[in-house]
């Protein structure tokens, strides 16, 4: 369960570049909620995810995960509760280390790092099984450097890493945006599968409106640092891309200005 209460974030305050990136965002995700997040350029989608992950401190408001106030916790301490996959496939893994070492790092998320050996033999067996479930042939390449993998393989691996220790919240920040359409569909399918199997609470930022409608049980639309639309259940199932664009114009009094989003509709 995630509870965001009236959070604000201003970048470069008092300068010519001042940006009120989060302008009073409040949101409550129930256990097992899978929310997709859409919105225009600079609407605050990624900023909201980064605020939850604790990349920087927020200026006001409160963030709770499963009832624990994490507002002032630094990023590495919050990581105990949060699994993350980034837009850039390079971002989620250590390229100079091999697949099993990356998985072993993630397997210990939220735990102290001791002088015990970095990977145990029984872990390897588990990793092999989990990797073979991805159907990417990675189970035979445990000792291959992650830098040699394709973007799609790296995103699938990052996804596995993010959920190896079951997170309270899974944050997917446009994690298919840098992939070709076929690979993106595959990674999305894996995401859906893992979220369903582990019954995870998840937030997925996407620029693909169709994906946002098809996946998850909630849809959140942001504009100018605010949540302007939050639909769930039957209402969400009946959404269409045209309908969404229309709703956006109606609420914000403006055209949707996400070039990538418009291209992909």
């Amino acid at each position, binding site marked *: 369960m995630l509870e965001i209460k009236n959070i604000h974030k201003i970048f470069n305050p008092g300068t010519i570049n001042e940006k009120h990136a989060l302008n009073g965002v409040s949101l409550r995700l129930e256990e097992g909620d899978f929310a997709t997040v859409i919105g225009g350029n600079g609407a605050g989608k990624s900023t909201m995810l980064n605020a939850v992950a604790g990349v920087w401190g927020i200026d006001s408001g409160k963030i709770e995960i499963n009832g624990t106030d994490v507002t002032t916790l630094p990023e590495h301490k919050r990581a105990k509760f949060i699994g993350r996959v*980034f837009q850039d496939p390079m*971002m989620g893994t250590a390229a100079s280390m091999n697949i099993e070492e990356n998985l*072993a*790092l993630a397997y210990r998320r939220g735990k102290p*790092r001791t002088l015990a050996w970095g990977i145990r033999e029984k872990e390897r067996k588990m990793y092999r099984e989990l990797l073979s479930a991805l159907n990417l042939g990675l189970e035979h390449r445990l000792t291959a450097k992650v830098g040699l993998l394709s973007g799609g393989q790296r995103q699938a691996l990052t996804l596995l890493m993010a959920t190896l220790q079951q997170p309270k919240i899974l944050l997917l920040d446009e994690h298919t945006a840098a992939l070709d359409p076929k690979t993106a569909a595959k990674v999305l399918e894996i995401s859906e599968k893992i979220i369903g199997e582990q019954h995870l609470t998840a937030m997925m930022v996407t620029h693909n409106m169709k994906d946002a409608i098809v996946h998850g049980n909630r849809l959140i639309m942001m504009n100018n640092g605010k949540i302007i639309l939050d639909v769930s259940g039957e209402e969400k199932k009946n959404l269409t891309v045209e309908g969404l664009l229309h709703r956006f114009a109606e609420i914000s009094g403006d055209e949707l200005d996400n070039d990538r989003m418009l291209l992909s509709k």
Partner: protein
Amino acid sequence: MADIILGAVALGLLWGVFALGVHLTYRILDIADLTVEGTFTTGGAIAAVLVTSGVNAWLATLISIAGGLVGGFITGILHTKLKIPALLAGILTMTACYSINLRVMGKSNIPLPSMGSKSVDTVFTPVMNLLKNAVGEYDKSASNAWLLDLITSKNFAAMLVGIVFMIVVSMIMYWFFGTELGSAIRATGSNPKMVRAQGINTSIMIIICLMLSNGLVALSGALIGQYQTYSDISMGIGSIVIGLASLIIGEVIIGKKTFKRNLIALPVGAVIYRIIIALVMKAGMNANDLKLFTAITVAICLSLPLIKDFFVKITKGKKRAAVLKAQADNKEV
């Protein structure tokens, strides 16, 4: 000549410990840490002061590591907590070390003579005595006397000590970087953002690695001070370049695919570098030009990948052009 080469090998192995320290920051953390120029001298200074005041040389050498750990810790705090760029943080600690080292030594140079009335026992003395006892008295005019001379020489003892330290230190590092903590440090050098997302405090990882690196460097300083029979306030100047030269020569010759390979490459590179220096000195190069020579060598080595790329591109382009031209010609026919 044999003794010159043996001396180069011995000194190379002692510098190999330094190169390993540089590897930890330069390759694993991806930071060029200049603290080493200060902590190298700190190691030499602490060992010299302790040895001359009667402390057992092996104990003194181990204690000198602490000086390096402190130096690395300070650079780590400056860099991670006070957000000073790594290069500058290293320069600050290095500069501060100069004063500290003078305080430790009380003067700019402490001799550690192996002979004479003020002679002191270094880490090499017991090994040398052991070898001398083992060989015993021998006829200086015998045909194998040169070999026995060599075995009972200080350089041979220093080589054995260097091999022991190199093996012990490499094994400890190999073990450490296979542990959970060591893996977390390696990952920090590769992708700090990902490491934070896995719940690891990257600042602490950087501090630990800087401490380890400078601990090794101080150890190397303590050994080299004893080898060259004096510790000097300026012994650290240019040491980072020597460390980098050793590291890069090793990587070019042995490779850097795995950590095991790196661990072998470092002492090999350091020894080869020392042999090259010994040979150019023997050929008559002015000792004052040594640092210039080293700097140029490192500059060339560091730009090798770029130079290689450049030539590969040219030859590939030429080949491709030739193929296209041949195809065009065929069509015409």
